[in-house]
């Protein structure tokens, strides 16, 4: 029963890593850049929601929607202003620029909200469900998290696979030159893609902040970025389905290791996991063999 419980708990947390991984994958697919500022962006938007809800008495749902909108704007502005100039340069430059943005966002959040710890109470209860006398490591809050992320996944699927806008976005990611020739505003599609990705990240931020008390701190979301990156790499960085599978596996592996080895080594596990995955399958566990044209 413990094992099953840990798997359930791992999946519930893994859903959040999947959302962050998805945010990274969306950006990677369109611009071939890993957005290291993602952790900072979702931290910042979560603080905005927290500020509205706890300091200005706003409704939780208002806070959530504002965080999503703020994430969208932050992502779009970051792409247009900071990333566009370094997009086609050496791969090192966007890495450094997004890290710079991460540092700035953390510093500004510290300036506004301080570097202490505070709590962001979730809308739903954190009390675990019971099956008879047996505790199940799953709460109404986690149920909400799973549903919210599933809804977002479904919406993204519909957008990309079933709408003309999604087709244009896929075209600009797949082949910018040809897309441009066919009249797609490629630059606008990239900005939109970054905005959407950051909004998905913002959702993950607000959701995870509620899972434990005293979570809110400008640096608290760093592990989420690394776990999300690990999940995205497991999925191959290129596939949204892989990102979700990667997120769930990272969640379960983490829950098992936390229970059976030690729960102080989370950050070390991500490093080892990343190392193992990249050494065994440098293109991700869920990737197909790349075809190389000679």
């Amino acid at each position: 029963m413990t094992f099953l419980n840990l798997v359930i708990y791992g999946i519930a947390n893994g859903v959040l890593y999947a959302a962050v991984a998805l945010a990274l994958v969306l950006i990677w697919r369109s611009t071939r850049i890993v957005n290291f500022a993602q952790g900072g962006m979702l931290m910042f938007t979560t603080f905005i929601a927290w500020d509205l809800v706890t300091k200005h008495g706003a409704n939780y749902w208002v806070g959530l929607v504002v965080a999503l909108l703020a994430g969208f704007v932050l992502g779009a502005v970051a792409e247009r202003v900071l990333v566009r100039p370094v997009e086609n340069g050496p791969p090192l430059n966007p890495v450094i620029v997004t890290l710079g943005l991460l540092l700035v966002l953390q510093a500004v959040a510290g300036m506004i909200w301080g570097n202490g710890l505070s709590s962001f109470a979730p809308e739903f209860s954190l009390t675990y469900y019971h099956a008879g006398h047996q505790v199940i490591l799953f709460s109404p809050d986690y149920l909400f998290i799973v549903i919210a992320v599933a809804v977002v996944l479904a919406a993204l699927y519909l957008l990309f696979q079933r709408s003309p806008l999604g087709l244009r976005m896929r075209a600009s990611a797949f082949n910018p030159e040809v897309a441009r020739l066919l009249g797609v505003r490629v630059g606008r599609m990239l900005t939109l893609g970054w905005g959407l990705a950051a909004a998905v990240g913002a959702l993950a931020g607000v959701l995870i902040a509620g899972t434990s008390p005293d979570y809110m701190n400008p640096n608290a979301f760093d592990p989420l970025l690394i776990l999300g990156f690990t999940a995205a790499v497991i999925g191959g960085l290129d596939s949204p389905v892989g990102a979700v599978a990667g997120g769930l596996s990272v969640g379960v592996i983490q829950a098992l290791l936390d229970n059976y080895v030690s729960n102080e080594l989370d950050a070390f596990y991500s490093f080892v996991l990343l190392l193992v995955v990249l050494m065994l399958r440098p293109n991700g566990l869920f990737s197909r063999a790349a075809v190389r044209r000679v």
Partner: protein
Amino acid sequence: MRNPIDRARWRRVPMVLRHGVPAVVGLGVLLAITEGLPAYRNTQLANIATEVCAVAGLTILTGLSGQISLGNGAFMFVGAYTVALILEHEPITHNGWLVLVLLAAVAVSAVAGGLVGIAAARLRGPYLAGITLALAVGIPVLPLYSHLQGPLGGHAGLSVNAPSPPNHMDFFRWQAWICLIAAAITLFLLANLSSSRVGRAFRAVRDDEIAASLAGLPVARVQILAFVVSAACAGLAGGLFAIVAGGVGPASFSLSISLGLLAAAVFGGLGTLSGAVYGSIIVTLLPTWSGDIASHVSLSDKIVNNLPQAVYGLGLIVGMLLFPLGIQGLVRRLGMIGRNALKTKPAGN
């Protein structure tokens, strides 16, 4: 060095002299300066010299061999804990012993760098950035593991017996001396390395891996070597840190340390050793400067504490967007303008 002939003649001076003389002269001047400095200035000097060791190693790795590392703080951690584990119970009684301890830090972190380098040689761009980021965050949590808490001291860390200065020399001055000498040796060795065959191999691999392997370079081995060199430098910096700070703890090696190293290398100009010096001075003194500004303009603590990090971040962004060559690039451009002005002057007369 104003015209190409002078420069060619300069190049003919043996490399050891070309890099050794400036290193020795610079070191001599700095060591002399420490005489009149108050204790906290000497500590600042020691901190800058420590940072220089680590940043110079990173700038060789990222600027010369083209591999990004966000995780050199982890190698500092390895070096620092190596020194702390040796010195925890044994006070340093002899200066030769101090040298050996620091060399042990270098050796252990070089091995760690080799292990990471083997993995890194297979990875490119964002993958490498991501895994070194995980390294930077993942290694410093090891002392918190319940089975390692005993030997590594958990959250509290380990204390280090600081080396006692020779002949009644001032304690802080002696610490500055240790770090300055270490930094001078590091810079000298790296300058030689950079203009040697190895340095050329680094550049060749950075510029075009396929061309480099066609020219007969073992690309993966060259990349691993670059990682070993930079990890060794970071390990030395970690060892110096342990000695100057008088102790080590997991909190001293947070992600911001690693990102600070990268910021310093980028500020100074990636791939240039003089740039590593400028960058280290800026990054080390920024917190002091922002404290000074704050005391004049009465800002809140929240703002003052976060100001240095905001400046690092903005510096990384602005540096990449506007001055990709960093301070050293600016210095060189100004030098060129000055040289041209000197050249045209006699013609005008």
